C-alpha cells in the first residue's frame, strides 16, 4: 500500500558541490565514525537531544543472542530465553526472517547494536534511527523519564543476574525457575499505572535488601497476627466485611511480594526483580507507535539532510529508500501479509503529517489543528514526542489526511449479532469516531484485561481474590486458569478470580479448581 504514503522523492540539493563521505557500500570503523559525526551535526540542527551513544558492532549470532534476551544486554538465565533463541535462530537459518537491523537499549550511554552484515547505507540508517531517533525519544518522552532510569539500568540488570544466579546456587535451578515462571506470567501486572515509581538502582537495591528483609517480615507479622486459630473463625460480620486491601490494587506482583504469607525472602526479591523489569518495559509497551514513528521520521529526515549537504551519493539514497519503504510498508487488511497496523507506518505518517501541517497547512488542517497549522515544525514535533503516549498521541495528532491516506475503517464484532458492522470510515462523519477508536486500541487497559487484587480473606482461609472488570463483555482468554495456578504458587493459599460486569459475577476461576458439588 505504498500509495498511502508519500512517494519518497529525492530532495533538491542545495547549491553545494556533492562531496560524499564515501562511495562504496563496504563499511569500516572509520567510516562509521565519520557518518556518525555528520549525522550528529544534522541532528543538532534539528535540536535532537540525546544521551551519549555507544555503537557496538556485532555478528549475526550475537544479534540472535541479543534478540533472545528481549533486548536486555545482560539477563538472568531462564528457559524461555532459550526458547526465544531457538525460535530466532531457526527463522534466521531458514531465511524466513531477517534479523533486526538494530537493537537499541534505553540506557545512558545509549547502546545500539549494529550488525556486521549490514551495508554502509544500512549502518547509516541504523545510526540515524537508533542513535538519534530512539535515543532522543528515550531521553525526552515523559513516560521514559518517569518510569525508567537510563543511567542505572545496566547496573541493575547485572545485579539481577547475579542475584538470580546466587539463588540458583543456594536453592537449586528448578526452585528458582518455578518462581520466575510464575512471575513472568504476571509481569504485565507488576506496575502501578498512576503512581510514579522510585527509580531503579542496583546500589540502592543491595543496600535495601537487608533492610527490606526485616521490614517485610515485620509487616507480614502485623498482617497475619490477627489471624484466628483454626476452628476459631471470626464471626463478627462487620470485621469480616472489611476488605484487605481496602482499595483494589492493580499491581498484583507488588501485592504478592509484600503480602504473600509463605514466601521466603529470596523469593520476594525475585518477584521484585521481575517487577522492576516489567516497570522498565512498561513505557515501551505504551509508546511503540510513537517511538518507532519518531525514529523512522528522523532517519528519513536526517539522511535526506545528509543528501542535501552532498554528503551521500544517489546510490546511497536509493538503497536507503528501499529499506525505508520496506520498513514502513503497511499491507491492507485483506492482504495475506496483514497482521495488524504497522506501528512504523502509523507513527511515521503522523509525524510526517505534523511537519506537513506546520509547513504547508490546508484549510482542513487549520480547522482541525488551529494551534499546529503553520507553527514551527521542529518545536511542534518535539512537543508531541515529549508529552504523550500512543493512546493520547493518536487522539491528539491523528489527522483526517492520515486517516484517508491509510484508508482506515472500523469494524465491530459483537458476539450477539450475526454480522460484522462497519462503524466508521475515513470520511467526514467518521474522522472523530475513528480517531477515538484507534486511540482506545492503544490504551493498555483496553489491550490487556483489567485485573486487580480485590480481597484477602485475612480472618478466614487466607484465600486471595482477584477481580477482572470486563470491557464490552470481552471475557478472559483460556490462559486464565493456567495463570491462576502461577498466582496460587506464589500466594500459597487458594486463589479465586472473578469477572464482575456491572456488579454481577459473570465468570469464576479457582485454583485449586473448585469441586462443582461444593457450591
Amino acid at each position, binding site marked *: 500500500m505504498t500509495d498511502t504514503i508519500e512517494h519518497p522523492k529525492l530532495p533538491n540539493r542545495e547549491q553545494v558541490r556533492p562531496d560524499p563521505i564515501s562511495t562504496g557500500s563496504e563499511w569500516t570503523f572509520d567510516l562509521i565514525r565519520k557518518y556518525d559525526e555528520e549525522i550528529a551535526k544534522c541532528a543538532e540542527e534539528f535540536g535532537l537531544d540525546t544521551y551519549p551513544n555507544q555503537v557496538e558492532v556485532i555478528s549475526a549470532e550475537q544479534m540472535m543472542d541479543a534478540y533472545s534476551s528481549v533486548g536486555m544486554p545482560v539477563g538472568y538465565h531462564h*528457559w524461555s530465553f532459550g526458547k526465544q533463541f531457538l525460535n530466532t535462530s531457526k527463522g534466521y537459518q531458514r531465511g524466513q526472517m531477517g534479523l533486526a537491523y538494530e537493537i537499541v537499549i534505553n540506557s545512558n550511554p545509549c547502546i545500539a547494536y549494529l550488525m556486521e552484515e549490514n551495508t554502509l547505507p544500512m549502518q547509516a540508517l541504523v545510526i540515524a534511527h537508533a542513535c538519534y531517533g530512539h535515543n532522543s525519544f528515550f531521553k525526552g518522552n515523559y513516560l521514559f523519564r518517569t518510569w525508567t532510569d537510563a543511567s542505572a539500568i545496566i547496573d541493575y540488570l547485572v545485579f539481577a543476574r547475579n542475584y538470580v544466579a546466587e539463588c540458583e546456587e543456594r536453592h537449586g535451578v528448578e526452585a528458582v525457575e518455578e518462581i520466575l515462571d510464575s512471575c513472568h506470567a504476571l509481569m504485565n501486572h507488576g506496575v502501578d499505572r498512576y503512581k510514579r515509581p522510585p527509580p531503579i538502582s542496583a546500589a540502592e537495591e543491595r543496600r535495601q535488601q537487608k533492610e527490606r528483609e526485616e521490614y517485610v517480615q515485620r509487616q507480614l507479622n502485623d498482617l497475619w497476627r490477627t489471624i484466628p486459630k483454626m476452628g476459631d473463625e471470626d464471626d463478627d460480620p462487620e470485621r469480616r466485611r472489611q476488605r484487605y486491601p481496602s482499595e483494589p490494587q492493580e499491581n498484583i506482583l507488588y501485592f504478592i511480594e509484600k503480602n504473600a504469607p509463605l514466601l521466603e525472602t529470596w523469593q520476594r526479591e525475585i518477584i521484585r526483580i521481575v517487577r522492576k523489569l516489567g516497570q522498565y518495559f512498561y513505557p515501551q509497551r505504551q509508546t511503540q507507535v510513537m517511538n518507532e514513528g519518531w525514529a523512522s521520521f528522523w532517519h528519513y529526515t536526517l539522511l535526506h539532510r545528509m543528501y542535501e549537504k552532498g554528503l551521500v551519493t544517489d546510490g546511497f539514497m536509493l538503497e536507503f529508500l528501499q529499506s525505508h519503504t520496506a520498513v514502513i510498508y503497511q499491507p491492507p487488511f485483506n492482504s495475506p501479509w496483514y497482521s495488524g497496523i504497522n506501528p512504523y507506518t502509523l507513527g511515521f505518517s503522523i509525524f510526517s503529517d505534523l511537519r506537513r501541517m506546520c509547513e504547508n497547512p490546508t484549510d482542513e488542517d487549520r480547522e482541525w489543528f488551529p494551534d499546529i497549522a503553520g507553527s514551527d515544525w521542529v518545536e511542534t514535533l518535539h512537543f508531541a514526542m515529549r508529552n504523550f503516549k500512543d493512546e493520547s498521541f493518536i487522539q491528539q495528532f491523528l489527522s483526517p489526511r492520515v486517516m484517508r491516506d491509510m484508508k482506515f475503517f472500523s469494524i465491530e464484532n459483537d458476539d450477539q449479532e450475526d454480522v460484522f458492522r462497519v462503524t466508521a470510515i475515513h470520511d467526514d462523519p467518521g474522522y472523530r469516531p475513528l480517531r477515538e477508536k484507534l486511540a482506545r486500541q492503544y490504551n493498555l487497559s483496553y489491550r490487556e484485561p483489567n485485573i486487580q487484587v480485590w480481597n484477602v480473606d485475612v480472618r478466614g482461609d487466607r484465600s486471595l481474590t482477584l477481580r477482572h472488570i470486563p470491557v464490552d463483555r470481552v471475557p478472559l482468554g483460556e490462559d486464565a486458569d493456567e495463570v491462576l495456578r502461577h498466582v496460587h504458587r506464589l500466594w500459597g493459599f487458594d486463589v479465586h478470580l472473578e469477572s464482575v460486569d456491572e456488579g454481577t459475577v459473570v465468570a469464576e476461576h479457582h485454583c485449586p479448581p473448585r469441586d462443582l458439588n461444593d457450591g
Partner: protein
Amino acid sequence: MGMTHVVDRRLNGKNKSAVNRERFLRRYRQHIKKAVADAVQKRSITDIERGESVSIPSRDIHEPIFHHGQGGKREMVHPGNQEFVAGDEIAKPEGGGGGGSGAGQASPDGEGMDEFAFQITQDEFLDFLFDDLELPNLARKKLKDTEAFTWQRSGFTSQGVPAKLDVVRSLRGAHARRLGLSGARRKKIRELQEQLAALKSAPDDLDPAFSHADQIEALESEIARLKANVRRIPFIDEIDLRYRQHVKKPKPATSAVMFCLMDVSGSMTQTHKDIAKRFFILLYLFLKKNYKKIDVVFIRHHTSAKEVDEEEFFYSRETGGTIVSSALKLMHKIIESRYSPDEWNIYAAQASDGDNWNDDSPVCGKILAERIIPLVQYYSYVEITPQDHQMLWYEYQKVMESFPQSFAMQQIADPAEIYPVFRQLFERKAA
C-alpha cells in the same frame, strides 16, 4: 549532545544464549526424547548420524499470561478500506468465530495445533537417544584398564638392564669421552713427533758432541709415556653406557570392536535384514558415544561363515541352510588373531531368524559359553521373527542364565520394536 563510542564487539563471545538453550532442552527433556525416538523409527539408515529437527506442541511450551478471549463486543480499526461505508454489514463466516479480534489462537485440543520446531545437534541427538542407557560391564573393563599399559620410548638413560643397552649410542659416548680426555696429550704427542721428525731428518753431525741422539731418545721416551697414558684411558667406561628408556603409559581403553553376526540364509528376507541393520546401527552409534575408535567386523553365515565388508554384509543374498556355529567359530578365530581382549573392548550383536540346523544349536551354546562370552564385554542376540522359537533360542537361554551380566537376548517382530528392544538390552541396571 554526547560523543559517540564505536566498539567492535564481534570478538566477544557469541553463544551467550547457550545456557538458556540448555535450560530449555533440560526442561523439555521428555518431549525431546520422544521426538528423538520417533525420528529413529522414521529415519533412513544412512542419515542417522546428524542432528534432528524436534517438534514440541506449542501449548506445552506456552507461557501463559492474562489476555482477552473471544467474545463480547470488540471494535478494531484496520487499514486499506476499499468499498466499505459506515453502516455496512458483513456476514460472519460459518462457525461463528470470525477474524475481528485478529488473535488467531489455535485450538488447544490438537486441531490445527501448531508446533514449536527447533534443531538439536548430532551430539544432543545421540545424548537424548541413548539417555539412561549404558554399556554393560563397562566398569569391569575400567578396572582392567588401569593395568593395561603400553611401553613407550622416552629417550635414553644412564641406568638400565643390559638388554636395553644401546650399543651405538654408548660407543659414540665413549668415543667422545676418549677424545675429550686425551685431546691435550695427543696434541702434545703430535708436537713431539714433529720435533722428533725434524731432528731425525736433520743432517747427521759427525761430531758426537753435537749428536741429537740424546734429544731423540728423550723425545721418544716422552712420546711413549704419553701414548701409554692415552692408552690407559678406558675404551668404554661405565659413564658411557646408555640404555633405551621406556616408560609405562596407561593405555586408555578407547578402542572397541563390534562384531556383527548375521544369518543370511534363504529364510532371512530383506525386511529381516533391514531390522537387523537398524539394530546394528543403533549399537554402532551407541558404542561411538563411548569409544573413540571402533572397528566393526561383519560376519555373515549360512552353512559356512565369512568375514565381509558392510556392503556385502547387508545386501548380498544367499540360499540354503544354516549353521550358526560356523559364525561363532570364525568370530573366535578373529578375536584370537586380531583383537586381544586385553586391548579391545569386544561387543557382539547377532541377528538371526532363529533358524538353525538342530544338531548345531547345542554346539552354539557351548562355543558361546566356553569360548566367546569370557572374552567379550557384552553379547546381544536378537531374534527377528514373529513366530515360535526354535532350538537355538532355548540353547541361548541357557547361556543367558549362566551369564546374565554379559549376555542378553530379545525378540523383535517388526521394525517399531527395534528401539524399545535396544533400550531394554542396554538399560542402565540399578547398581
